[in-house]
C-alpha cells in the first residue's frame, strides 16, 4: 500500500506487528517528523532518551531500535539509504518558531499543529506529544555542545524502512518548516509504503499479526 503525503501535510496509520513502513524522500532533503505509540496503550510511546540510551548514540540508522517510554521496542530500522537521522531537535511549532526566527513566523504552519490535528483522530492530545524523530534531518553536535539543523544529506528517492515490533500507531508530520535547511527551505511530498509481515522470520505471533 503506497500513499503520497503532500508537502506540509500530516499522516497516520496503525502498523501491525511484523509489518514494515518504508518512508521515501521523493524530492530529497525533506524532514519527516515522526511519533510512534503502542497501538493498544498510547501511554506507551516513543522515547527519544530511551532510544539514545539503548543504542548509545543520538543518530538513527539501520539497526536502531525505537524504544518506548517504558524501555520496550516499538519499531526497528531495517534499511536506510541515508546513514543518519535526528533524535534531538523535536518538532517545529508556531511557538518555538517565534523564539527561533521571530514573531513574524507565527502565521506559518508547523509540525506540532499537524501532530495535534492528526493525533486527535486517535484520541491523542497535547500531553501525548513528546520529543520526536526527524527522519532525514541532519543535526550535528559540536565539541562545545553547539547544535543546529544544517543542510540535509538525503537525496531524491532515498528511503528507510521500519519494522513494527508490536502493533503501533504512527503519526507523521511532513515538515512545513521554511525557515531552516531541514527541508531545503522548500517542503516537498514523501511516500509511505506499508509492507506485509515477513513470515520467514515471523514467530507464531507475527503470523497472526500479518493475518489481521
Amino acid at each position, binding site marked *: 500500500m503506497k500513499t503520497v503525503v503532500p508537502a506540509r501535510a500530516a499522516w497516520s496509520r496503525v502498523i501491525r506487528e511484523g509489518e514494515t513502513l518504508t518512508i521515501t524522500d521523493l524530492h530529497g532533503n525533506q524532514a519527516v517528523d515522526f511519533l510512534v505509540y503502542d497501538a493498544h496503550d*498510547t*501511554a506507551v510511546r516513543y*522515547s*527519544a*532518551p*530511551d532510544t*539514545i*540510551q539503548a543504542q*548509545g*548514540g*543520538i*543518530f538513527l540508522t539501520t539497526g536502531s531500535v525505537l524504544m518506548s*517510554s*517504558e*524501555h*520496550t521496542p516499538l519499531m526497528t530500522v531495517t534499511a536506510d539509504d541515508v546513514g*543518519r537521522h535526528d533524535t*534531538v*531537535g*523535536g*518538532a517545529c*511549532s508556531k*511557538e*518555538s*518558531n*517565534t*523564539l*527561533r526566527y*521571530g*514573531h513574524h513566523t507565527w502565521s506559518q504552519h508547523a509540525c*506540532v499543529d499537524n501532530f495535534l490535528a492528526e493525533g486527535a483522530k486517535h484520541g491523542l492530545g*497535547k*500531553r*501525548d*506529544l*513528546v*520529543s*520526536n524523530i526527524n527522519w532525514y534531518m541532519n*543535526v*550535528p*553536535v559540536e*565539541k*562545545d*555542545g*553547539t*547544535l*543546529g*539543523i544544517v543542510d540535509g544529506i538525503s537525496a531524491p528517492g532515498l528511503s528507510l524502512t521500519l519494522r513494527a515490533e508490536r502493533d503501533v500507531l504512527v503519526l507523521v508530520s511532513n515538515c512545513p518548516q521554511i525557515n531552516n535547511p531541514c527541508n531545503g527551505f522548500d517542503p516537498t511530498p514523501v511516500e509511505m509504503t506499508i509492507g506485509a509481515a515477513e513470515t520467514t522470520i515471523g514467530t507464531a505471533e507475527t503470523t497472526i499479526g500479518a493475518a489481521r
Partner: protein
Amino acid sequence: MATQTTYGARDHARAQEGTRAEAMPVVPAGDWPDPPCEAGHLVWAETVAGGNYTHRVLARGTELRLTDPHGDACAHLLLYAEGRPWERLNVADTVKVQWNAYLGEGQLLLSDQGRVLASVVADTSGRHDALCGTSTLVSNTERYGDGTAQSPSPAGRELFKLAAAKNGLEPRDLPPSLSFFQGVRIREDGTVDFTGSAGPGGSVTLRAEQDVTVLIANVPHPADPRPDYVSTPLEVLAWRAEPTRAGGALWDATPEGRRAFLNTAEFLASKGSA
C-alpha cells in the same frame, strides 16, 4: 515504651518528634543549619535520599539550589507551569532553540509554548545531561534486578510517576527529563560519552521564571556504567528571590532567550499575574 494501649501508642509516636535523619525535609525551611540566604527567605530545605524523589510548587522568582554533597547524586528534573500542566518542559526546544545540547549557567529551560519555565543562574558542576532521560522499570530490572519504587534500585520513571500522581498528573504527562550532576558529551559520530560526576560539592541554581511544579527523582544516570546502583543524597534548598526582568543579565543574553522572556512576560501580564 508500652504500645499495647491507645495512650501508650500515642505517646510512643509523639516521642519521635525531633528525630534527625540524613535524608529528610527540614520544616520550617528556615531551620536549615547553614542557609545560603537570609534564613527567613528559605521556603524549601530537604535532603533527598539516593533512590528517592520529591516535588514542590515554586512561585515565580524563587531560586532553587540543588547540591550534590557526596558526589553521586543525579537530580532528574521535570517542570510544569503550575496549574496548567499541559505547558511543560520541552527538552527538544530547550536544546534546539538555544543551539546547545549541554546544560549550564545562562541556559533557559523552555516550555513547549515558547516561554521560559526556569533559568540556570549558577552552576559549579558542569556535568549535566539533556539527552539520555532517566531510568525505567525495564532497564533497572535488567541492570540491577529490580526497578520498582520500593526496591533497593528504584527507576527514575517509576518515581516520577509517583511524584506526578501527587500533582494530579499521569504517566502521559511525563515527557523527556533533564538530569544534573552526572554528565554526558556527544562524540562527532553521535555516540554518547558518559563523563560522570564532577565530585562532591557541586551545585546548580535554577530560578523559576513562572510559577512552576517541580518533580525531582534522585537516581543513577541511565548511562552510569557501574554495576552497582550508586545514588547518594541530594540537597534541595529554595528561597524567595526575584525573576529575571528586562535589563537583567539573562534577559538579553541571546535573541532567542530575549524573545522567550518577552513571550513569558506578556503572557503573565495578560493574565494579570505579573
